[in-house]
């Protein structure tokens, strides 16, 4: 297993290098450069600008610039935001807790929904309940998240007034108090449901089919013959076997949540990484934009790696090839 994991991680390195080169070249292809974030905006003397360009390494050959950029990135130095006039790393660190909070809540919602629906549908397949769950899943899969989000705001925030429609926490609350956390949960619940519903359908469908398949296997028949209670067969014998393949979904969820977060954070004006990314694009804040692009690509790569490794854990045959 260790050998397989190490091989996967080494296999990821060329991919990482290629992606970093692409991101770097894209950054260079951007109209304008990140210089304006580093220099004194009031000093427009051409000599001063030329001197700063030289000093900051904008005149170096491309490979040198690339290695400088990689060195900076690894050390957590992402340059300075041209809009906020502060280091991009600080800007990102400020937003990351919000996005992580949103991602974790949405995963939690996915698991709760998928497990309750999947177990029910798997236990009573081809009944009305199963068909209703199947239909709901189908809708969840087909309706785009941004349409679901817009309708959710319209109905639950504006017409019913149940949830706030913007922000991540009410202003003026003391950090760390109970009210503060309740307010955060109140703000995150709607975006998390919209984001979480995205992944629910595939989980539910997988769990349902796996439970049906397992319930026909010999070990279940044996358990039945011994007189084990039906609920125990389903909740212990079958579920344990059906959950194992599900953990491989976790890695792919990271990629889904990244893309989903950009959309949901924008709809709910939730101050996270996704919203920061879109704002940086509209305001031509290239250093911020490139740092987030690289960061999100890195996360996707890590997500795929986790999925790969979990596959190896679940299915030992994969480790061999």
């Amino acid at each position, binding site marked *: 297993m260790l050998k397989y994991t190490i091989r996967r991680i080494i296999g990821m390195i060329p991919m990482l290098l290629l992606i970093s080169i692409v991101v770097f070249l894209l950054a260079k292809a951007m109209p304008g450069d990140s210089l304006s974030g580093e220099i004194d905006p009031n000093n427009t003397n051409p000599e001063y600008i030329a001197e700063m360009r030289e000093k900051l390494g904008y005149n170096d050959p491309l490979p040198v610039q690339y290695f400088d950029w990689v060195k900076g990135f690894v050390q957590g130095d992402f340059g300075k935001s041209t809009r906020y006039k502060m280091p991009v790393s600080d800007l990102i660190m400020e937003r990351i807790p919000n996005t992580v909070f949103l991602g974790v809540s949405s995963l939690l919602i996915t698991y709760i929904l998928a497990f309750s629906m999947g177990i029910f549908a798997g236990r009573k397949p081809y009944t009305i309940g199963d068909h209703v769950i199947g239909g709901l899943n189908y809708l969840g*899969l087909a309706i785009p*998240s941004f349409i679901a989000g817009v309708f959710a*705001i319209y109905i639950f925030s504006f017409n019913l007034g149940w949830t706030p429609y913007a922000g991540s926490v009410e202003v003026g609350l003391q950090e760390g108090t109970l009210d503060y956390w309740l307010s955060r949960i109140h703000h995150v619940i709607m975006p998390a449901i919209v984001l979480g519903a995205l992944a629910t359908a595939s989980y539910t469908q997988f769990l349902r089919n796996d439970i049906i398949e397992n319930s026909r296997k010999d070990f279940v028949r044996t358990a039945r013959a011994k007189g084990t209670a039906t609920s125990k067969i389903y909740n212990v014998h079958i579920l344990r076997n059906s959950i194992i393949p599900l953990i491989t979904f976790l890695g792919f969820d990271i990629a889904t949540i990244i893309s989903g977060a950009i*959309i949901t954070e924008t709809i709910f004006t939730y101050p996270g990484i996704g919203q920061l990314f*879109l704002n940086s*694009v509209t305001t031509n804040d290239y250093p911020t934009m490139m740092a987030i692009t690289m960061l999100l690509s890195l996360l996707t790569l890590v997500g795929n790696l986790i999925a790969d490794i979990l596959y190896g854990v679940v299915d030992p045959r994969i480790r061999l090839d």
Partner: protein
Amino acid sequence: MVNVTANEMNRQEKPINMSPFAIARRKFLRNKLAMVSSFFLLSVIIISVLAPYITTQDITKVNISQMSLEPGGEHVLGTDKSGRDVFTRLLYGGRISLLVGVTCTFLVILFGTIVGSIAGFYGGFVDGLLMRFTDFVLNFPFLVFVIVLNTILFGIVNGLWVLIGVISLLSWGGVARIVRSKILAEKENEYILAAISIGCKPSKVIMKHLLPNVLSTIIVQATVTFATLIVAESALGFLGFGVPQSIPSWGNMLSASQEADVLRDKPWIWMPPAIILTITILSINFIGEGLKDAFNPKSNR
């Protein structure tokens, strides 16, 4: 035993010599949900294409005296904040959304099939190289890179084609993987060995012998891709990074809902595109499910 008799009964009902595609067509025509969906999608396409003949309103005209009118009277679905007729924009928007969807799907399927079938047929080094390239493309977070590429290329080429190119460039990976796995399984058959041994060129083996046999998978994959890409286009339009704002598309129309007052008080501006988009995507998905079912020899419906 029960299954066997059921199969035999079915066989007696059907004419004996039906090609797989004839059987599939029969199954598809009997699938009510898929037929209703096809009818709806076809109507949407026809109405969108004929938009200039159905409505005579000028889509670009900004009319300050008719801002944010409620539905009814001269404007069936009301007007938006710039005084443009929502119904007219909905028709023209359908044109763009469907055009982007169809063109991207065509490019994605074309490229994915070429890469997938070459990788699957040749195997070995070619396969390794092409599949690593596919992995590489699949590793980019789609939305992030579409937005970044769009920003760089915007202004250099016409906005609509930039979007089509960028979306297609980043989405063919999944199709390539699926086609490859199908080709890998199909080429183990003896008729392929026979075709190679009588001296068919690889291009002919792929085009004449392999592709027709994986065509059903490609068709199903095309419907799924079509739905996904329409969603992608409208999501980008909604975020403000799709086709240029001057061109109406369903996504661009939906982006009006980002203004709180439109979202809260003027639902006629954003609800029509939201509803028509959802129904269109649902119907494409139903058609896809119907096709999948029709091509599946194990299903007896």
